[in-house]
């Protein structure tokens, strides 16, 4: 037993509890920002610990928790998303500004995401997914005075708990087939008993788990909740759902499929591939019709989940490597885009409408540049990080003999150019009316920091692609259970 290996978990648990306690006890006005400061300190400490732990796998709690390169790198994605969320919510009336429990809930969700990607057991994986889901249900409904926010929370809760129930059933069947809840145990059991692949009970388990994780990752046809929930939730929460939850769900996909059940990959490759195709096509077509930027980004996040699923469907470490790289790129692009939406929302009523963006690039050129970079990279134009990631994902599909995935992905990307570039054109075009650009607030430094860092990362990840990919390859190799 090596409990020191779980240090990141202790740190995150401690700051989460501290932030929640501080949200309940009365604080003097000078200490109003204390929960956020503690949360940011905890996230930075967690990131520092993961750097020192980078190396061979350590286990804690009898293998319930696996601290390896995969979990540590995924923790980076998640903690970056959580940090950005706290910064985006800084002083935001809908978030930390009025409701101090915001910080504690974001930290609880981040802890759950970290637990998910570091789990070595079905039970830990389940607790992680639930910790993140339950915290996010509350975060969505945070603006209790706004009916849309409540509606968003309830819709997310109901679809999310259907997903949870199916996940439990799938895990129960997987346990029934293999007789163990440990991911490593499942892998060895599938390896040793050759006849277990294509066992009907195992196939049922795989289908249920794919459906349940499809709900969490908002893959088509389990995506219906996504646009409503993303639009209704407070925008910093939407940004967090689009990045952190996506990363955790993809981490769970990789741990369960590329990792634990790789021996039965013949049973799930086609299934997840079909899910990826449906998600890419429906997500991109759905995004074409949107006039609300938040809703458009929701559909875009569905489409992006489709690209990411290619990395799972191929079932190889090359696919996992490309997926992890693309997750970093995706998080940078999405956070940059949401930061600009938040900026606009604070300035004008209904700032999340596309019309509110008209002429914004002229009024605030730096914001226009950040948004343009994010959109162009999301659409997959070279030479940005989004292009590199998609190129690797499609390449891994071709290498794995699933060229059809790459073809659908390329066609879907072409469709996506239309709606991503529409935002860019509107932003640099003439203002819709003179009223919309008149009101200019001082730019909140925390939001600007997220936007600029995201934009720098979009370029930086492409320039430093090789060292970054080496790290991702190390993480992907750690997935395969020795």
């Amino acid at each position: 037993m090596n409990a020191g290996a779980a240090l990141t978990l202790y740190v995150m648990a401690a700051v989460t509890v501290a932030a929640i306690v501080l949200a309940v006890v009365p604080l003097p006005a000078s200490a109003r920002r204390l929960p956020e400061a503690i949360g940011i300190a905890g996230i930075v400490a967690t990131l520092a610990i993961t750097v020192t732990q980078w190396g061979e796998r350590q286990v804690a709690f009898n293998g319930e928790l696996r601290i390896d390169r995969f979990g540590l790198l995924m923790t980076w994605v998640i903690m970056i998303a959580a940090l950005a969320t706290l910064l985006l919510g800084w002083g935001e009336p809908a978030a930390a500004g009025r409701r101090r429990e915001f910080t504690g809930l974001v930290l609880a969700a981040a802890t759950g995401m970290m637990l998910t990607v570091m789990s070595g057991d079905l039970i830990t994986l389940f607790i992680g997914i639930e910790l993140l889901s339950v915290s996010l249900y509350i975060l969505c409904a945070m603006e209790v005075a706004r009916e849309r926010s409540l509606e968003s929370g309830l819709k997310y809760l109901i679809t999310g708990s259907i997903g949870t129930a199916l996940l439990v059933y799938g895990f129960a069947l997987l346990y029934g087939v293999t007789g163990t809840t440990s991911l490593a145990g499942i892998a060895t059991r599938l390896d040793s008993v050759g006849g277990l692949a294509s066992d009907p009970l195992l196939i049922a388990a795989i289908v249920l788990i794919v459906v349940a994780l499809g709900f969490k990752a908002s893959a088509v046809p389990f995506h219906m909740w996504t646009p409503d929930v993303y639009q209704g939730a407070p925008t910093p929460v939407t940004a967090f759902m689009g990045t952190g939850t996506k990363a955790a769900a993809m981490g769970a996909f990789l741990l369960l499929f590329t990792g634990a059940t790789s021996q039965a990959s013949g049973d799930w490759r086609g299934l997840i591939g079909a899910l990826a195709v449906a998600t890419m096509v429906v997500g991109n077509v759905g995004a074409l019709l949107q006039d609300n930027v938040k809703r458009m980004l929701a559909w875009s996040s569905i489409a992006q989940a489709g690209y990411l699923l290619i990395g799972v469907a191929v079932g190889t470490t090359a696919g996992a490597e490309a997926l992890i790289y693309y997750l970093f790129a995706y998080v940078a692009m999405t956070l940059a885009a949401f930061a600009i939406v938040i900026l606009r929302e604070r300035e004008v009523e209904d700032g999340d409408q596309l019309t509110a963006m008209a002429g914004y690039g002229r009024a605030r050129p730096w914001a226009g540049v950040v948004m343009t970079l994010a959109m162009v990279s999301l659409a997959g134009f070279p030479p940005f990080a989004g292009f590199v990631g998609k190129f690797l994902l499609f390449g891994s599909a071709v290498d794995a003999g699933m060229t059809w995935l790459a073809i659908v992905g390329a066609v879907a990307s072409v469709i996506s150019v239309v709606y991503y570039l529409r935002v860019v054109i509107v932003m640099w075009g003439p203002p819709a009316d003179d009223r919309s650009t008149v009101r200019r607030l001082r730019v909140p430094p925390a939001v600007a920091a997220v936007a600029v860092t995201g934009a720098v990362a979009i370029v930086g990840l492409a320039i430093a692609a090789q060292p970054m990919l080496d790290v991702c390859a190390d993480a992907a190799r750690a997935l395969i259970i020795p």
Partner: protein
Amino acid sequence: MNVPIEAYLMLSLALLALGLVGVMRRRNPLMLLLSVELMLNAGNVSLIGFSRLWDDPSGQVFALVVMVVAAAEVVIGLGLVVAIFRSRTRLDVDEMSSMRG
């Protein structure tokens, strides 16, 4: 007495089917929560059945964890339903007009 694993699976499948039908047919959020609860307990029944089949305690641990999670979800669900109910019923004396004469 030894209950065969088939019995556990039949019961859990029946519960899962009931829950799924409820989720698809009901429109009342309380009924939806109840149906999800049925589905979760279907998972619990099969977890415990398999735990006895393999003579391994981790299935029972899993079932306990699921119960805790289910409780947490219901608490939040009910909280949201109450909040929505409150925001929809406005206090307005003009609307209190079912008795007139």
